[in-house]
């Protein structure tokens, strides 16, 4: 019994020692990390808060919620990457897929209104946004239920030959805050006069 008790006590002391070392290591690492992050005299600042630039391609739920983003509206296209060729007077069509990623349960849906206005997107001498229209004036996008919309680009009569890049413009979101908008299309082609 005595030997068992001695073994038990020794094992307990070893456990305490390991715990103490672990605490020491964690504390030191924490302190080093804190001073690397802040590099300020802690007594000078009650608190600090970092505002990072967010790359919406890599936005995750915890990061989004930390900065008040409740949902992400992603605009993509099955035509991304394929080249287009347009001539004056022609109307080009581009399918768009709108999908809502929900970061907070309160963000069930977003209303997307399509209201391109002159000057919003200009490519060289072409006022693109003045030549853009959409198949819908507005749509409601629910989380997990993508919506397809067609974007039309009316090539101006006076367009000159050029390489051309096109981006969906004029998307207005309701609610206007709490939703991040990621336009992830890639429409490149040429206009041939």
């Amino acid at each position, binding site marked *: 019994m005595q030997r068992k008790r001695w073994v038990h006590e020794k094992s307990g002391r070893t456990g305490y020692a390991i715990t103490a070392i672990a605490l020491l290591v964690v504390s030191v690492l924490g302190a080093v990390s804190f001073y*690397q*992050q*802040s590099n300020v005299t802690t007594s000078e600042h009650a608190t*600090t*808060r970092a505002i990072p630039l967010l*790359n919406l391609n890599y936005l995750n739920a915890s990061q989004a919620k930390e*900065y008040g983003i409740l949902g992400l509206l992603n605009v993509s296209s099955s035509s991304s990457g394929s080249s287009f060729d347009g001539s004056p007077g022609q109307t080009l069509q581009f399918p768009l897929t709108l999908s809502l990623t929900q970061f907070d349960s309160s963000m069930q849906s977003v209303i997307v209104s399509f209201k391109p206005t002159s000057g919003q997107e200009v490519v*060289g001498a072409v006022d693109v946004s003045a030549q853009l229209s959409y198949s819908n004036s507005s749509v409601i996008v629910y989380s997990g239920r993508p919506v397809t919309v067609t974007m039309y680009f009316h090539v101006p009569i006076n367009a000159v030959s050029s390489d051309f890049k096109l981006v969906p413009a004029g998307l207005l979101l309701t609610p206007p805050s709490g939703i991040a*908008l990621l336009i992830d299309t890639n429409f490149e082609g040429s206009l041939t006069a």
Partner: protein
Amino acid sequence: MKGATVLLLLVAFLLVGVLPVHANPYVGSYLSNSQSTSTSNFFGTSFTSTSASVIPSGDWIASEMGNAGTATTGSCPCFYQLGYIIDDTGNVAVTAQYWGPSGSLYSSQTNNVGSASSITLEGITEYVSGSGIQSKAFVYNTLTQYNNNSPNSYTFTAQSTGDTQFYYGTSTGCSSTLLGYQVGVESPTTVSSSSWYVWQNTMEVYTTSWIYQAGSSIEGNNSFFQCISGSAHDIGGAQMSGVSAVYTAANTVEWQYSGTTEGNNVALWSGSGGSTPYACQVSGRC
């Protein structure tokens, strides 16, 4: 053992509470005059010497402008970021992010506006009467576009936050030095290769004309721009170790991974001056 477990939990709790939840390495420059106000802020940048292959998969490098608004009522104090992001494939995206004390007011990003070989990328954040704060990106993808001053331009929707002006220069708040206008480089992790370069130029603000002042460096753990509810807010949150200004001239700096950390408040250029930024030389654009 119970006591030790409780202590361990307490330490873990304190560490979580003390450490920033999210921080990116950042280094930038600021105009080092005493604080003043502007109605438009501008910057230019390019990644033309950057080899995107050195950017690890899933990583990226941003060249960005940060602007602190002067309003303190309603949904403000507010902060406005406009940045170009190059990823590991060489694609360049542009993003506009407007922040208020309650979180993000507005965040929009457009991918595939340019590439590592884009000639130059410029941007402006300005007050538009009757609409609010608005950002515009000017992308010169080809030399022809540059020579003709005919960029692809993208306007981010104006947000009526209450701001009509921005701070530039230095002031004090939350026992910190606040830098209202900054232009810098940010990344999720420092890309430790000497084969990336970020040019930044035309750090100008509009008062009654376009001007710049002497510029100095700032790291992301000291890049405070606003004091909100007793908390000093900074850009990125961590210093960009090993990155330094490898070239400087009036109103211009080139950042590169050199193994040397730039540090804080290092003079990058002296003197003042100003001229209309290139994109704004076309009437009605800015």
